[in-house]
Structure formats: structure tokens, C-alpha cells
């Protein structure tokens, strides 16, 4: 497979897999929407999955070696603090990312 064919195949697979996860409840679970377990999962699974996604995106941190995840943790703290304070999604994401890029590119923590 050359580069472009591979990329198109990846896009195709991802399109199918993404749509599958979105259509599944509508295709299979339509008649069970009022089931108490599904209502319970519908309410509590999104916060659980968001928590896991945060951990997932931070999984590469090595807490046993310098800088002990300090850039990631500080940037996260900036994002969280700003968001709790001003609740401006764009500002929170931009500030945390800009800080992290600055730290990584200048190496001030490393």
C-alpha cells in the first residue's frame, strides 16, 4: 500500500468505526430507551469516560524521571483553573496548550 492508499484506507476505517459507535444505540436500543439501567448508564457513563480520556491522554507521563510530569500537570492546572473561573472553553484550551508548547519548546522545566 502506498502512502495515499493507506491514508484513504485509514480514513475509511475510521469513518465506519465512528459512525458505528454513533448509530448503534439508535439501531439496536431504540425500544429500550426508557430502561432504568440505560437511563442510569446514559447519565453516569459520559463523566466516567471523560475522566478516563483525560488519564488516557496523559498516559505517556513518566512520574519516575525528571520532569515528573510537571509540564503536563501545570498546563492541566492552568486549563482547569481558567475553566472553573471563566468557563470559556476556547480560552481554557488555548492557554493550557500555549503554556505547554512554551515549556516543551524552551525546555524550562527539563
Amino acid at each position, binding site marked *: 500500500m502506498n502512502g495515499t492508499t493507506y491514508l484513504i*484506507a485509514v480514513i475509511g476505517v475510521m469513518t465506519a468505526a465512528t459512525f458505528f459507535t454513533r448509530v448503534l444505540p439508535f439501531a439496536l*436500543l431504540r425500544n429500550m430507551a426508557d430502561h432504568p439501567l440505560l437511563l442510569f448508564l446514559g447519565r453516569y457513563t459520559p463523566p466516567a469516560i471523560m475522566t478516563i480520556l483525560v488519564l488516557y491522554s*496523559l498516559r505517556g507521563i513518566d512520574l519516575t524521571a525528571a520532569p515528573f510530569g510537571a509540564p503536563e500537570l501545570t498546563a492541566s492546572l492552568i486549563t482547569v483553573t481558567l475553566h472553573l473561573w471563566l468557563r470559556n472553553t476556547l480560552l481554557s484550551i488555548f492557554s493550557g496548550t500555549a503554556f505547554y508548547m512554551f515549556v516543551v519548546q524552551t525546555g524550562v522545566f527539563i
Partner: protein
Amino acid sequence: MFGYVPLGMAFGILFQDLGYPWYFATLMGLFVFAGAAQFMAIGLLTAQAGLLEVAVSTLALNSRHIFFGLSVLGRYRARGLKKAYLIFGLTDETYSLITSTEPRGQQNEQDYYLIITALNQTYWLVGCTLGAVTGSLADLNTAGMDFALTALFLVLLIEQWKKIRELFPFAIAMFSGMFGIVLFREQMLLIAIATAIVVLILQWRMSGTRA
């Protein structure tokens, strides 16, 4: 909602670093339309991951959408193509917007959902394209830009907290996530999500009627 533009740009810039033509970033935004999965795709493409791995990773990462869908089953009553597009476009951002805002005045709520979804995808496409074009014209230092994904998840997490304000789903997920990281690291996503859901179901069974 506007958050999709800079986030899409971050994706576009990182994407064109791989050496593909800019319009493939637009195509991904058009067909895949999944922010987190597209960021993950950059890592997979870099590693030249097999298609099976691409499929499993995407399914795992997007499995949360199953539960988004579940909780809007009652809301999405449009039919045909309209409904197909609503389902196709049920991203994190769309989900959080339609579950936290209401249509104004006399506006039909199904049309309101459609407009939100279409606007979200438009902003996302603009962002992906702008980022990829900018990135291919200028030589940018993109190191660390992938933190945008972490920041997005943190913001979505806080929004969930503001909505739910109960500790246990977050606590369950912390334990499941740490468990997954310690045991599986790179493949932690699937096992952590599965563990958390099993524990949530047990919690539901033990608490009896709460829902």
C-alpha cells in the same frame, strides 16, 4: 462551538506535519468528524498502524458515543436523512451543546439540533483546512500542540462535573483508568472503559431503584 476552529487548526497543523496534502485534513473532518479520534489518527498514521488496530482504537475511543446516543434517544425524533445526519454528527461538542442548551422561543427543536450539528461541522472543517494550509505554508514548531486534546478532555470533564455533581462516576473512572494505565499503558482505553461500565452496572444493581 467556536472552540472547534482553533482545535481543528491544531489538528490540521499536526496532520500536515505527516507530509500528506492539506485537503486530506478537510476530508477527515468531513467524513470522520471526530475530534479526539482524528488527533489519535495522527499517532496511528505516524506509527503506520495496521487497519485492524485503527478500527479497534477508534471503536474504543468513540465507544463513549454509544452512551451519548443512549441519552439522546428520546430527543432525536427527526426522520430519514435529517436523523442520519444528527446521528453522524453526534460529537462530544454537539452532545454537550444539545444536552445543556434549549432552543429559543418557537424554534423547532429538531431543526435546532440540526443547526447546532451542521454549524459544529462547519467550524471543524474550517479549522482543519485552515490549520493544514497554514501549516504547509509556514514552518511552524508544533511541539506540544497535541496538549490541545488533553485540554479539550479536561474542559469536557469539568462540564460533566458541573452537570452531574456526584462524585462516584468520576471516582470509579479514576480507579479504572489508573488500573488500565498500570497494567496496559498504551492499550488502557478499552480495558478502563469496560471496567468502569461493569462497576457502574454493579453500582446500579446494588442501589436498586435509583436512576
